[in-house]
C-alpha cells in the first residue's frame, strides 16, 4: 500500500473540521423563505375582521396597483416594533393590506388604537390558511405584490427603520 494513503484519513478529518469551523464562524441562514416569490398570489378571499375595514381578496391584486401584504397579529411582539415603519410606508403612499393571523376583532382594534393603523384592509385568517398558502413561516412578514398580482419580494421578520427605503424602492419598482 502506498505510504501517502496513510494521510488520507487525517486529510478527511481536516476537511470536516474546516467545514465545522466555517459553520461556527458564519452560521447558515436558518430563515425559512417562501418558494412563492416570482409566482402569482394564490387565490383567496378573507372576510373583514374589524368594523369599517374591508376584507382582503387576491382578485383585487391584479387591478394594476402594486401593494404590500403585511402578515401580522395582535399577539405578536415584533409586530409592535414594526408598526412605526408601516406607518411611515403608509405616509409615503404605499397601500398595505393586512392579514391578521388567529386574531379577534377586539384584540386587533386595541392593537391598532395603540400602535397606529397603516392598513387599507384587514383580512381575517383564523386558521392561518392564507398564511400557509403564501409560504409564510411566521409573523410579521411582508410580501411585495406587483400590479399583475405577482409576488416580487418577501421580507421575513419586522421591517426595521433602515429597511423602509429598500421596501419603498422595491414597491416603486413593482409598478
Amino acid at each position: 500500500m502506498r505510504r501517502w494513503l496513510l494521510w488520507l484519513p487525517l486529510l478527511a478529518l481536516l476537511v470536516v473540521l474546516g467545514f465545522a469551523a466555517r459553520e461556527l464562524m458564519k452560521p447558515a441562514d436558518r430563515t425559512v423563505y417562501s418558494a412563492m416569490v416570482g409566482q402569482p398570489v394564490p387565490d383567496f378571499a378573507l372576510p373583514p375582521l374589524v368594523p369599517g375595514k374591508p376584507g382582503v381578496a387576491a382578485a383585487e391584486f391584479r387591478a394594476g396597483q402594486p401593494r404590500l401584504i403585511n402578515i401580522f397579529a395582535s399577539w405578536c411582539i415584533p409586530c409592535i416594533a414594526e408598526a412605526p415603519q408601516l406607518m411611515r410606508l403608509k405616509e409615503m403612499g404605499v397601500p398595505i393590506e393586512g392579514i391578521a393571523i388567529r386574531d379577534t376583532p377586539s384584540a386587533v382594534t386595541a392593537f391598532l388604537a395603540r400602535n397606529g393603523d397603516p392598513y387599507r384592509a384587514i383580512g381575517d385568517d383564523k386558521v392561518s390558511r392564507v398564511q400557509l398558502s403564501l409560504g409564510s413561516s411566521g409573523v410579521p412578514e411582508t410580501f411585495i405584490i406587483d400590479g399583475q398580482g405577482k409576488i416580487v419580494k418577501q421580507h421575513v421578520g419586522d421591517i426595521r427603520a433602515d429597511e423602509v427605503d429598500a421596501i419603498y424602492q422595491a414597491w416603486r419598482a413593482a409598478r
Partner: protein
Amino acid sequence: MRRAALLALLLCAAPAAADSGLPPAALAYTQLPDAAQEAKAKALMETVRCVVCQGQSIADSDADMAGDMRAMIRQRIAAGETPAQIRKWLIARYGDYITYDPPLSAVTLPLWLAPLVLLGLGAWIARASFRRRRRTNE
C-alpha cells in the same frame, strides 16, 4: 437587598406571549373519524417540518402554526386529496425544506450516493488487506 429586589422583579415579569389566544383549529388535535384516512394523514404529518420550530415535525409540535398545518392536512385528506398531492403543494410553498423525506435532486444526490461510494471504498480496502494477509500466510 438589591438582589432580592431583582429576584422579585424576575418573579413578576410576565412571559412574552408568542402564541395567539384563539383555540386550536378544529382538526389540529382531533383525529379523523375514518381510521385509514387518519393513518394516511398521520404518516404525512410525521414527514412535514414545523416551520416555526424547525427541528420538529408538525406531528410533534404544539406551535399554533403546526396545529393549523395538521388541521389543513386532515381536512384535505378527508376531502379526498392524496398525501403526495398535499406534499407537492407544501413544497411549492416552502421548498424541499418543508419535508423530512427529501426528493432526489442535484443537491440531495450526495446523500443518496455517499453510502454506495463508502461501501465500494470499504470493499476495496478489505480486498487489499485480505490479499496482503494471504501473502504473509504463505
